[in-house]
């Protein structure tokens, strides 16, 4: 339970971090809050040659309104975003989901972008980013590109990030008038990894539902009926289509049942929250 050896680079600018990533490629890994990376290092599931600490790069810990979206920089810690007074008005789904991310003792250090980079299939922040159709801003020495969340999460802890890229920021769309937002998850204990997590957005005509913890990445379903038997039938299809697996925490059947119940409850709550 001790990390293997690595060089430690304290980057002072994005360009420096890009240079090291370009030179070392997959042998380098970016360290932000460390709440996901440090366990990987200590269990030696990750054995990088170089760890690049980006937390002292000026300007990365900024939450910035950007038109009809919010830009959250790579060094913004989860606790900082949760404490941002404008958050519940700007994006209620994110405000509702953040208290479920880890524990107070890890949100104090863990970053929003770090959770996105880690891409755990049961993590709340990737789920919310996908539900909102947000974007990931990747940058490298080659330049910058914006990737939609749906294209970014490619599988179990794997993403569209190239070896020489880092996440510079994520972009979360703001709340849209006439839409309601809700988040629910089921876990054995508050703060544990979700067995199933649901994020719902209800509009006037239809609902959008993102489901985490079941497949090897969060999955989003659009154009769902808002209630009634039609919603039940749609949730049945969703539960069956998701590739649920048995594991230590729950059987596939149990997860499918949770998708139906939690999905329905989350959509109902989102409908009630429509403003």
């Amino acid at each position, binding site marked *: *339970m*001790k*990390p*293997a*050896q*690595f*060089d*430690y*680079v*304290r*980057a*002072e*600018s994005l360009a*420096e971090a890009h240079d090291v990533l370009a030179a070392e490629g997959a042998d380098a890994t970016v*360290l932000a809050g*460390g*709440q996901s990376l*440090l*366990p990987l*290092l*200590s*269990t030696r599931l990750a054995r990088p*040659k170089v*760890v690049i*600490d980006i*937390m002292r790069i000026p300007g990365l810990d900024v939450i910035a309104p950007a038109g009809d979206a919010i830009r959250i920089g790579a060094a913004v810690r989860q*606790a900082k975003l949760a404490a941002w007074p404008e958050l519940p008005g700007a994006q209620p789904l994110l405000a509702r989901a953040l208290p479920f991310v*880890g*524990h*107070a*003792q*890890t949100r*104090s*250090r863990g970053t929003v972008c770090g959770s996105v980079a880690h891409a755990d299939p049961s993590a709340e922040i990737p789920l919310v980013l996908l539900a909102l159709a947000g974007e990931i801003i990747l940058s490298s020495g080659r330049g910058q590109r914006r990737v939609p969340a749906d294209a970014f999460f490619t599988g179990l802890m794997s993403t569209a990030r190239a070896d020489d890229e880092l996440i510079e920021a994520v972009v979360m769309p703001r709340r849209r008038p006439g839409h309601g937002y809700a988040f629910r998850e089921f876990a054995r*204990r*508050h*703060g*544990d990894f979700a067995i199933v997590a649901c994020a719902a957005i209800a509009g006037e005509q239809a609902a959008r539902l993102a489901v985490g913890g079941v497949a090897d990445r969060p999955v989003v379903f659009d154009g769902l009926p808002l209630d009634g038997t039609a919603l039940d039938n749609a949730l049945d299809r969703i539960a069956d289509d998701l590739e649920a697996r048995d594991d230590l925490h729950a059987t596939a059947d149990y997860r499918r049942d949770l998708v139906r119940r939690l999905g329905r409850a989350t959509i109902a709550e989102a409908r009630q929250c429509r403003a």
Partner: protein
Amino acid sequence: MPRLSAEERHRVAFVLNGRPVEGQAEPRMLLTDFLRHVLGMTGTHVGCEHGVCGACTIEVDGVPARACLMLAVQADGATLRTVEGLAPEPGRLSLLQQAFRRHHALQCGFCTPGILMSLDNYLRDNPDPSEADIRTFLTGHLCRCTGYVPIVAAALDAAERLREAKHSA
């Protein structure tokens, strides 16, 4: 741009419980091991070493943090508090520590330093928590002895006495 090589040890300096300290660490050394083995501050306990149990929770720059989820080199220049910094003077416990003793909020004591550091920080920002607040907050810590009931009681009692102390001050 500082690059600290894997094989060498590097100077790490920070403020610990109000006093400047320093030592040498390889980049891979966890902050828990630096505190305990390099500085000899063994009040911070090491349980799971991957951020789950909470025994190693300390305060870093004013917020609770798992010391096992930090490299020692990340702490360079920071301000840290550990359980050794809780008592106001030798032989006198803090109000929170006194409440833990009164309520028998520890048995083996392994998880206690982390829980104390978490609660000390939490009660500063949340002087009047409900039992549910305390229980949610404590999900970040594992205690295998007490069943948490005396820990929750001690936290609520400490909150009340801290409010009284602030009021009469």
